[in-house]
């Protein structure tokens, strides 16, 4: 029973917070670039507008095109319920740990890439090809970083990983943890399609990656896909902050502590958003074929993290 209540609270947090994080990042970025920006609530307005609109389904598309938004959305939500957000205890920790999170996000990506190719438009194919390439190259670095964290906890279960982190609040200053954090942060940038890997605000189809795959979506399905993308961003950010900065993470869900936990979560998310904004503003988007170099850096950092687990 408690599990169900926890899941519902976390589900609500995921659905509600994800557009907010996107909005905050966009607004902060606009301010840093001395623009006014559309306001932090704009993603909600976009979703509201899209959900009320009609859709155009391309004639060339098959049922894959219509099934994909659902698979992506549910897969991302399911992954989101497996991570510790407010308390170290992940609501669906029993259904899957960090590997399941990664593979569920992978399931969504697989179907998005299929639907990119489904319409026959060459822009969709271009996006699918790039997305699959970049995510494949990001994978080894991510796995090394996860191995480093999981070895510390002796488990791939996120409840156990976060629990181990709570036990040693200042552990993130250890070299192994710092390297793993840096590797995972680079992977997060690649996975969520942010500058310097992909530009979420681009209007030029030829430079798009994620946006090119979903070019043919409209109306409610576009809303689902975009919502899922921001939830995925929230999931990966939360994963990063709660595995490495366990401040304020509650051991259990109930009582006054939960409110403190949510407060800390928001504060940490804001901090990470600021870091992302800064990174996005001072960097230019990379050429596609420079991205492997960035991911090679991430892989090296991951390897260093592993080596330092037994050097220091």
């Amino acid at each position, binding site marked *: 029973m408690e599990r169900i209540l926890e899941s519902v609270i976390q589900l609500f947090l995921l659905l509600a917070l994800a557009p907010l994080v996107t909005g905050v990042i966009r607004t902060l970025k606009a301010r840093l670039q001395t623009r006014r920006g559309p306001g932090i609530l704009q993603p909600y307005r976009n979703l509201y507008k899209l959900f009320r609109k009609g859709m155009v389904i391309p004639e*060339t598309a098959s*049922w894959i095109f219509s099934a994909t938004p659902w698979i992506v959305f549910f897969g991302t939500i*399911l992954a989101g319920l497996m991570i510790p957000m407010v308390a170290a205890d992940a609501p669906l920790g029993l259904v899957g740990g960090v*590997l*399941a999170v990664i*593979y569920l996000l992978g399931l969504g990506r697989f179907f998005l890439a299929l639907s990119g*190719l489904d319409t026959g438009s*060459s822009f969709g194919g271009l996006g*699918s090809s790039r997305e699959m390439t970049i995510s494949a190259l990001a994978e080894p670095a991510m796995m090394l970083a996860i191995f480093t964290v999981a070895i510390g906890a002796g488990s791939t279960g996120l409840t156990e990983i976060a629990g181990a982190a709570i036990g040693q609040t200042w552990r993130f200053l250890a070299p192994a943890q710092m390297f793993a954090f840096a590797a995972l942060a680079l992977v997060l940038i690649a996975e969520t399609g942010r500058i310097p890997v992909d530009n979420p605000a681009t209007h030029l189809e030829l430079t798009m990656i994620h946006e090119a795959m979903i070019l043919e979506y409209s109306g409610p399905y576009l809303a689902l896909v975009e919502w899922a993308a921001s939830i995925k961003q929230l999931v990966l950010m939360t994963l990063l902050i709660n595995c490495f900065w366990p401040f304020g993470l509650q051991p259990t869900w109930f009582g006054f502590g939960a409110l403190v936990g949510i407060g800390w979560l928001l504060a940490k998310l804001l901090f990470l958003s600021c870091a992302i904004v800064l990174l996005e503003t001072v960097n230019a988007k990379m050429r596609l074929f420079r991205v492997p170099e960035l991911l090679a850096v991430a892989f090296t950092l991951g390897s260093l993290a592993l080596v330092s687990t037994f050097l220091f």
Partner: protein
Amino acid sequence: MISGLFLSGITIWLAGAMASLALWRKPVAARRTGCAAALAGSLLDLSASAFAIFSSSSTVIGLPFGNPVFSWAVRIDPLSAYFNVTLGVLAAAVSLYSFGYLREMEGRRNLGAFGFFFNLLLMSLALVFTASNVFFFLVAWEVMALSAFCLVSFEHEKEEARNAGVLFLVMSHAGSGLLLIAFLLLTSVSGSLDFSSFHLLASSLSPLQQGTVFLLFLFGFGVKAGLVPVHIWLPEAHPVAPSNVSALMSGIVIKTGVYGMARVFFDFYGAPPIWMGTVVLALGVVSALLGVLYALMEHDLKRLLAWHSIENIGIILMGFGAALMFRALGQPNLAALALIAGLYHTFNHATFKGLLFLGAGSVVHSTHTRNMEKMGGLIRLMPLTAICFLVGAVAISGLPPLNGFVSEWLTYQALLAGFGTTQSLTRLMFPIAGSLLALTAALAAACFVKAFAIPFLALPRSEQAADAKEATPSMIAGMAILAVGCVVAGLGATWLVRVFDPITQQTLGVSASSAMVTARGMALSPGTPHGGTISTVGMALLFLLAGAAFALPLAIRWGRRSVKGPAWDCGLPGLTADNEYTATAFSKPLRMIFSALYRPRREIQAEYEVSPYYPRAFRFESEIEPTFEKHLYEPLRQRIMAAATRMRAIQAGSINAYLAYIFITLILLLLFGVRG
């Protein structure tokens, strides 16, 4: 009961082989007899081995042939039974599929011969998995190799098929040669040909002998399994065979190599030196990565699948390698986990790769091409084949909640647990292997986006693809069985893992499953304290629940508001098949990133009349370098040919010389005999 079922299965296969050969002049009867016997034999074999697993005992059956020295005996122990279950499931599905698939060949090809070799192959596979002495094992092994050769080169009017068949035969016999030496070395120590006399024997040899026997077995079985660098026959031979044979080849014939390794590594050896595990793990990683990287560059659908077999054998061997290392480190429970990961993946690969080859067979059957660039849009014309192929593609990409995910997850868990088992630098092997497994899995997902999307989605790229027809009901039934197998082996993980207890008990002396099943049988854990858990059933239930509660009603509501229209395509009107992304284009970024491996070569020629700025036609050619063939096998072939040329001097054609050779040999043998 077990022996009765097993023997009747063997008998039916044998009878089916003879009967279809006898009926070769009546193609319809030959097809039906051959397929029906294969199906019946598979079901009997499946039930016999299923009983054998659940009774977790060994059954020894002496066949009424042979003589005391070369006895023909089979022993169905848990390990044999497990591989026989895999065989039974796959062979039943493939036999069912063959009813429809072979119909097109009626009157054009000799289906009597096909039925003969097909049944013979199934029979020899069952015997390879159960033979209990060296002699019988090698006989079954040869029958298997020869019947597989005949099936691979069944379409022998094609030069491609003949060459691939010969390459397969040569490689296969090179492998058998290595096996023969290894078995003779063991026999000379034990003094018996029986497998039971080899139990733990190899570990009592001197380190040098131990290592030699190990390497001989590794590469001898590795040839059949498609281990890099002895894999080169596989991507040639699997695609040219008829697709039902390809499914058997990739699904189960290469698993005889895996079976052999499991038998040798975990039955003949006790705790091995650690370098053996390290070698197997490293070769597994290399095979997995190279397999998927070469698969990405293929646009021949069946060759692509064949390369993926090499990848998956690599993943299986990663499990085996880790198990060997854990054994060397004195960690039987972890060894059981890693062995289960490898064996689980063996079954999973048989189901999804069998399924994918059958799906590819249906596609090739109705489009008459293996080139993906000429397919497209088949999901509309062949909807059921498309769904089955999609299930296989999701499963092989290791995505939840299907079976590929479960076995890859177990492999990760084994590798993760390995880091803490030793203080030496060897432990770095585990996380590095894990991260490369992650790369392999992600590249496989990229490859199967291509392998599903290019043939099945968007617009048809050729007239053949536009005229494609759905497969016949029996073909769909065959694919559906395997698709259901992928789902069941994914969702039923907590139930299936109990099957491995007799095997780990027999080989490692521990049972792992009770520690691996948690949460009232709903979740799987690696069995280590506080290890992570997964519940594929839970995921599937939540997906279904969410789908039924939200997706269906909303999709219906939104459906009323949606209209069909031309793809937007950035406002460019008139989308045609020529605009579509191709398989070559899809894998272009990876071809550039891994160009150090592929060494791609391309040639562009433009034809123009007036000015080079207005070309009339383009000719584009692109290929990648076959590294192993060029740098390993070609020099080897040249050496062998040079040696053969030199040896020709002995064979001068003069009778007198030959008589002299015989005389000299005789004298030498006499001298040798007198001395001995």
